[in-house]
């Protein structure tokens, strides 16, 4: 069980480092290609071409590390698959049929077909990749949303779950807000990376024309997405957690005893055994307001619930959530400052801010990972919230030794892939925008 969880946590977290850039970058590339189509500015096309090269490497690693996930539900979580497959099998199958065929068909045309397809055709190919990857995101989030907040199901004669309302399941309110929150995060990741490369070149006085464009696109896109990330998407996600997963809310905010006018903890270290938050730095009443829209609302603490319903790793959940919010706020502040400097035409000369933009690119990756940890740890001890416990979900006859073996295998393989990926992307960034057409 423990190894099944570790293995899935590792493979899915590692995998998601890549699609978050794929999805955000495909959106930014569509914008660049669109600007090229409308303004005929060759600069936009050169920018799109450079990012297409990074995109291709990133996409390849995303694809190959994604294949195992579709199968790991069955290999390691057979009892869960058996129980919930009649419902979540729908969205997983639809992802393959509607999203992956689209994405995989157009990626080749997009990466290699610029000359052959012409301007409009190439824009269409970029659009196809964008739609495919964003659709794929929705189907996966809808699957996850069912695990967080099951709707549209009925219990079948064998005790397993069956679909009772397709639309209720697919337009689960949890899915919609989780999706929007996730996609904003994905745009932030891509925009921050674009801005970081721009900052690197600008600081080096290399490819300055491209650097300016990257900074402009990256900073503005990251600012807009960061605002949307907090309001309305983050806010709505928080309210859903407050309504449907009160134990998660209490744990991620470090609330042990039920409190009216509950304060929001900015910093503090939870002590699960004593049931207290050490060294708290708090803002009074704000948690009640954020969760329920009024300062006077009572937030239920963990002690209001039986211990067997508490999330099983409260400290990690608490810190994940605080890291996500902390880094998200930091990115928002950095992008706001950068946008003001851009507006007043000082950004390209303000080296300290360029340094910060260049060094900030890991933050959205960390924040996104922490956000997913918050989502998944907050759902515990359930795998399907309120219906099936994680402890009852793994494959009944699987030998733990086999799972340890394959976990070690995944660690080794993915480590090598990571090294190769960083090397290749580093090379592309060092090489800069290619003057010639196509790949060199």
């Amino acid at each position: 069980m423990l190894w099944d969880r570790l293995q899935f946590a590792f493979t899915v977290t590692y995998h998601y480092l890549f699609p978050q850039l794929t999805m955000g970058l495909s959106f930014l590339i569509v914008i660049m290609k669109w600007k090229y189509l409308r303004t005929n500015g060759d600069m936009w096309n050169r920018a799109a071409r450079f990012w297409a090269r990074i995109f291709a490497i990133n996409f390849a690693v995303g694809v190959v590390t994604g294949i195992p996930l579709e199968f790991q539900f069955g290999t390691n979580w057979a009892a869960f698959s058996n129980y919930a497959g009649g419902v979540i099998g729908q969205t997983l199958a639809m992802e393959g049929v509607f999203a992956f065929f689209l994405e995989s068909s157009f990626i080749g045309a997009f990466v290699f077909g610029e000359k052959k397809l012409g301007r409009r055709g190439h824009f269409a190919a970029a659009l196809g990749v964008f739609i495919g990857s964003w659709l794929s995101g929705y189907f996966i989030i809808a699957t996850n949303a069912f695990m967080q907040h099951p709707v549209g199901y009925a219990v079948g004669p064998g005790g397993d779950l069956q679909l009772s309302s397709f639309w209720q399941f697919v337009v689960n309110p949890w899915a919609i807000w989780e999706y929007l929150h996730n996609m904003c995060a994905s745009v932030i990741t891509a925009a921050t990376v674009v801005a970081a490369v721009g900052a690197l070149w600008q600081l080096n006085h290399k490819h300055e024309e491209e650097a300016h464009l990257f900074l402009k696109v990256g900073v503005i896109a990251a600012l807009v997405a960061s605002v949307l990330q907090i309001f309305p998407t983050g806010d709505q996600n928080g309210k859903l957690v407050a309504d449907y997963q009160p134990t998660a809310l209490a744990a991620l905010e470090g609330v042990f005893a039920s409190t009216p006018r509950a304060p929001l903890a900015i910093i503090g270290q939870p002590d699960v055994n004593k049931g207290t938050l050490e060294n708290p730095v708090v803002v009074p009443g704000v948690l009640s307001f954020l969760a329920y829209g009024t300062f006077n609302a009572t937030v239920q603490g963990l002690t209001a619930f039986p211990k067997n319903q508490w999330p099983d790793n409260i400290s990690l959940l608490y810190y994940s959530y605080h890291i996500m919010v902390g880094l998200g706020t930091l990115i928002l502040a950095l992008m706001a400052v950068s946008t003001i400097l851009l507006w007043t035409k000082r950004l390209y000369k303000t080296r300290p801010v360029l340094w910060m933009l260049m060094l900030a690119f890991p933050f959205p990756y960390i924040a996104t990972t922490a956000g997913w940890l918050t989502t998944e740890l907050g759902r515990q001890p359930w795998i399907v919230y309120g219906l099936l416990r994680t402890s009852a979900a793994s494959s009944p006859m699987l030998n733990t030794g086999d799972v340890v073996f394959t976990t070690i295998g995944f660690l080794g393989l993915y480590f090598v892939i990571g090294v190769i990926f960083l090397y290749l992307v580093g090379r592309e960034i060092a090489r800069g925008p290619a003057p010639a057409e196509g790949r060199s």
Partner: protein
Amino acid sequence: MHALWYTLLALMLVVYVVLDGFDFGTGIIFRYVAKSDEERRQILSAIGPVWDGNEVWLIAAGGTLFFAFPRAYAAGFSGFYMPLIILLWLLVLRGLAIELRSHEPYRLWHDFWDTTLQFASILTAIILGAAFANLIRGVPLRTSGYFAVPLFTNLLTHPYIGILDYYTIIAGAFCLVVLALHGALFLVWKTDGAVRERSIHAARRMWWVVIALEIITYALTAVVQPDFLASLTVRVWPLILVLAALAAFFYIPVSLKGSNDLVPFIGSVVFIVGMLTAAAGALFPVLITSTINPSYSLTAYNASAGSHGLNVGIVWWPIGIALATGYFVFVYRSMSGKRSAGKIDEYSYK
């Protein structure tokens, strides 16, 4: 409805084997038919734009199995744990080999990925064949709906079986040569020059090995699982499909002498489709055969999802597959014609 989903699932898997099969096939003979860097790039430019889309048929079939027959998905994937995870690793390596090779100009970099591609393609083909043979031979599926078998035991088919025994290994070897032939014929169609010549040569030789292993595999099936062969010949449709497949297979060497390079590949496609659909027809309605007690077997009827789910699926599935077919027609048309060595056009891997 259950029979329909069984059929659609079988068709998706057949399409997967036909399409990704030629990717594996070209990988299996990669270093043999393409000697120089230019020739290897020639092959990669023939499969580069399509391999990912081809592989999606496996993902989509896996998803369809999950949604239509969740009990079979759960039992099969957890029971075939080790070979499945190894297969996933091989698919990871194969994808990386195709995609990353072109990113560096160094000889050693190319050699590394070329060898990786060939190694992963060979092992993948063997595992796919062995996995299918496991479905025919049966596994110790319990009344709980689960089973667990190690990768191998003493390589015999009883009493304590592993995924790999003499029967499934032979079947894996059969799959290996069938896909190698398939890949060679794909290259006859899609390339010219030295690669095409060597592919014709490889195909002619491989054709004889396929016959030899086919006879052995069938003879062993008669020993290991006589019921399967019986239903293959008693039911009318499977028998017709087998005969069609064999006719196409024997036409392959004839067509290789002809002027149309597409015909031998079509022959191989008909052969693979005929054999696999016949096998699926003979297995129907069983998804996973239990060696403990036939009544424990998971079938299209006792492993399926609820009827509402299946009915909803029958609305969106055809729409999705129609769209996918449209994309495939677009992609294959946009890369029509032969790839030539040394003439790296727009649509190619450098």
